[in-house]
């Protein structure tokens, strides 16, 4: 959220995040170059190839970690701080992967009779063979996808493309990861006999797939859960189950979700989809009286779904009412920014009495 344009809204958290990230990358590459020849590499290896592998494996592990962050944050909120600056993580991954490419070009293609970049694309072209498939194509395709994601990572593009389109575009990272795994499996692993490489390169995609399947299964179960209705209204929660200042995600008929919040003696419901990056508002909390997205801290007033002035973001709202100890919600979402009267507990209880 910004009133005047600033290219990157740096803050202390972002500085720390980037500094630690950079430190880990430098540390990994240093340790790999220092110790891999004795521990992993079974045969003598040239320094240039060693550096190539250091940056290549680093980019692979970084992309693996990035893909784990989403499901990890859904499974355990303690991972949310890592999600906060994930875009910087992605940008750094691109540059590490690009450095790997520079070493590849410098070692294998710079003395080619044709232009080195032409050589990268044309030196091996047995595209009909599985094992001899040109791994350079797989690696370059991965890098192109990462470049597009890096180039459009800024909030300007998020706003320009709109969050749904931007998210669809950035789902290309899954394709990139698939290509990258095959780049490795048909490349290094064809020539390398150390057991460490297949173990690491095999365990990483299994971890990513396992985490995404776990979250998908959790979502699927939530979607299939029986919704009890009272006329057109849906039973959202028992009053006693609502924790003060914390959100609760409600699955509505058709699969849409609402975010239900109790804040003091009031209860309101908003769309579960943050206007910034479609983050899950129901997994957020109330800070300073405002619903706060767990991903990047965008805030909305619980009564009408509007960001506080001077910000202009809006999300949809839902009508809520109390019946006995049950909180009911009308599943028809009101347009973004529409005020919906909250449940005021004392008043509602007096009315029931």
């Amino acid at each position, binding site marked *: 959220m910004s009133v005047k344009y600033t290219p990157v809204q740096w803050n202390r958290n972002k500085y720390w995040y980037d500094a630690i990230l950079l430190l880990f990358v430098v540390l990994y590459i240093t340790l790999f170059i220092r110790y891999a020849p004795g521990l992993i590499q079974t045969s003598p290896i040239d320094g240039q190839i060693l550096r190539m592998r250091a940056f290549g494996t680093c980019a692979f592990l970084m992309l693996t970690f990035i893909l784990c962050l989403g499901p990890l944050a859904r499974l355990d909120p303690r991972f949310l701080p890592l999600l906060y600056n994930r875009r910087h993580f992605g940008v750094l991954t691109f540059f590490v992967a690009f450095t790997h490419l520079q070493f590849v070009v410098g070692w294998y293609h710079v003395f080619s009779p044709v232009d080195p970049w032409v050589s990268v694309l044309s030196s091996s072209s047995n595209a009909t063979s*599985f094992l001899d498939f040109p791994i350079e194509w797989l690696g370059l395709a991965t890098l192109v996808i990462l470049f597009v994601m890096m180039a459009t990572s800024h909030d300007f593009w998020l706003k320009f493309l709109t969050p*749904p389109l931007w998210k669809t575009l950035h789902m290309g990272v899954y394709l990139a990861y698939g290509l990258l795994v*095959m780049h490795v499996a048909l490349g290094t692993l064809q*020539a390398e006999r150390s057991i460490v490489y297949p173990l690491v390169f095999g365990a990483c*995609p299994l971890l990513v797939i396992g985490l*995404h399947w776990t979250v*998908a299964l959790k979502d699927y179960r939530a979607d299939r859960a029986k919704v009890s209705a009272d006329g057109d209204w849906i039973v959202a929660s028992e009053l006693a189950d609502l924790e003060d200042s914390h959100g609760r995600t409600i699955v509505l008929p058709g699969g849409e979700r609402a975010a239900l919040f109790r804040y003091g003696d009031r209860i309101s419901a908003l769309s579960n989809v943050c206007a910034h990056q479609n983050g899950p508002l129901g997994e957020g909390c109330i800070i300073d009286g405002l619903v706060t997205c767990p991903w990047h801290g965008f805030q909305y007033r619980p009564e009408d779904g509007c960001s506080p002035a001077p910000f202009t973001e809006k999300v949809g709202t839902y009508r809520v009412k109390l019946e006995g100890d049950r909180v009911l919600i009308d599943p028809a979402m009101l347009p973004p920014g529409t005020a919906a009267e909250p449940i005021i507990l004392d008043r509602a209880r007096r009315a029931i009495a």
Partner: protein
Amino acid sequence: MQVGHRRAHRAIWLVLGVLLPVLFVAALALRPDLPVEAEAVERLAPKAGGGGP
């Protein structure tokens, strides 16, 4: 829209979850044996008195 994205996510990870391990294992299982490292062979001295092949 969120429903569509969730379904797309599930479909993508279902496909990747099946395809990637299969291709990965296939790439490992089918990889050719590396040639046995040849030991250094001393160049044979030419036979005395010449003589070629």
